[in-house]
């Protein structure tokens, strides 16, 4: 059973979003997504200051099975990326909501987060998939 924390929001393409106290949002891929991909061997992250549109492919996660795009769950500007993943992509598998975070965004509009799925909706979504 995949872990779906109750304090996050979720996209259909299996990214999670956490709103931080400073108004930025942290994002990564869900436990369900890392489970489907299998052990990651490489993570490619965007440049800091890169502006992303919602649903724009902005990172790549690669496992021995497949390379998959990661989409920006909301529009914004990249303010920080998780450099640790360059050497330790397995953090995404081991701790997808913690040490395996991918990037931090300054959202164009923080209300966009509300349009993403709630934990219950996402749980239902992955069960129906």
């Amino acid at each position, binding site marked *: 059973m995949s872990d779906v924390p109750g304090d996050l929001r979720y996209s259909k393409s299996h990214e999670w979003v956490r709103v931080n106290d400073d108004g930025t949002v942290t994002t990564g891929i869900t436990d369900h997504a890392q489970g*489907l991909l299998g052990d990651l061997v490489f993570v490619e992250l965007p440049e800091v200051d890169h502006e992303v549109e919602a649903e724009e492919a902005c990172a790549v996660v690669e496992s*021995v*099975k*497949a390379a998959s795009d990661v989409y920006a769950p909301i529009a914004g500007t990249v303010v920080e990326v998780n450099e640790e993943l360059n050497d330790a992509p397995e953090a995404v598998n081991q701790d997808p909501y913690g040490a395996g975070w991918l990037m931090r965004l300054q959202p164009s509009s923080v209300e966009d987060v509300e349009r993403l799925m709630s934990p219950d909706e996402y749980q239902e979504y992955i069960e129906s998939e």
Partner: protein
Amino acid sequence: MLIFEHSRPGRRAGVQAPAAEASADDLPAGLLREDRPALPEVSEMQAVRHYTRLSQKNFSIDTHFYPLGSCTMKYNPRACNTLAMLPGILARHPLAPASEGQGALACLYELQEMLKEVTGMKAVSLTPAAGAQGEFAGVAMIRAYHDARNDDARDEILVPDAAHGTNPATATMCGYKVREIPTLDNGDVDVDALREAVGEHTAGIMLTNPSTLGVFERRIKEIADIVHQAGGLLYYDGANLNAILGKVRPGDMGFDVIHMNLHKTFSTPHGGGGPGAGPVGVSERLEPFMPVPIVDYDGDEYVWLTEKERPQSIGRLSAFMGNAGVLFRAYVYARLLGREGMHRVAEFATLNANYLMKRLQQAGFDLAFPDRRATHEFIVTLKRQMKELNVSAMDVAKRLLDYGYHAPTTYFPLLVPECLLIEPTETESREELDGFVEAMTRILEEAAGDAGLLHEAPHTLPVRRLDEVRAARELDLRWKAG
């Protein structure tokens, strides 16, 4: 065991060794090596046994059923290779004047003509050296066409999400942005989404038909009309040409440019990174842009067409004629089959795939598209087995090796979870297909009884389950002594 591990100082095959040391006195002293190279020192028989044993460990189309979907691993008739090695072909110097090689040029010209007929295109250039280069040539021609018309706003290539990964890569290499078009649940391209996506930015669309999902794109005419009306061109990826060879023609479907993989569809072994050939066929409007050289017949003799005759050409993609050996094999293959034979290739490839698909369904496997007829390949999904038995597509693939079958393609296309993409090809007998079904049936029984057996497979090969994750994370390709 590596041949270096057989090595003992001073041991050698005297009869095979050169009688005298080669002279190197014409090389500058600073470039000469000081130590002898670290070559294995073995007897002739040790070398023979070592390499014979290695060859016996191969899984190859010559030894095993090889149903690798999307790759068409079919039998390459020996005659094609033998005839392509005739001295008149093999010994011809590429810089020899055309008048000295009329026979070889005639073969290439006829190959162009046969490929035109089998694809329904207006003209063919044989020179791209492999599939990826054929793709590149195709999209480069689309670019050259728009550029020649000063139609500069077209900066997008549409690619269905089921496409081969090479398609978006090619579009990017040619300087285009890639826009993905979704696929419907029944395997067809989402035509409504396509309609919304096309416009003045559309340079073209890259399509494989039959698609990577193993089904025929039924609304292809409508798709062609939508893209053409928006001013874009249609590119056909020839990866799956084996399914329709001569039966349905990309030119008739409305495609403007196509690449063909002569290695794989036309009798050259492939998959080892060896030489390939990716000829391109074009509609009338792209003809001026074709890569050169091309062979032409002026009514009297065969001549080369180069940049001089084709000033708008995208240019040369390789030295001389690309991988000429592959072209000659393809020529012999096409001549051996003839028109009816080509049709039979497509018919038997499709028949074999549909037979295998139905039998695996009866054996309890789930199909990704149970309501669709297979083309030359089809997809089994082990999503249910993964959930219920914790048995993955990779486990089944590895276990198949124990039964003496090369595994089908795993985890591709990406759209279908836990999938096996199975392509039996036209050259397999019914008995061979039945044997595969029997192995798959037994694996399914094992999955229900003892999933551990599958998790640890293969059990009978020289190497057991490899740690692919560690291999990718800690890449180490060098053998070290001791």
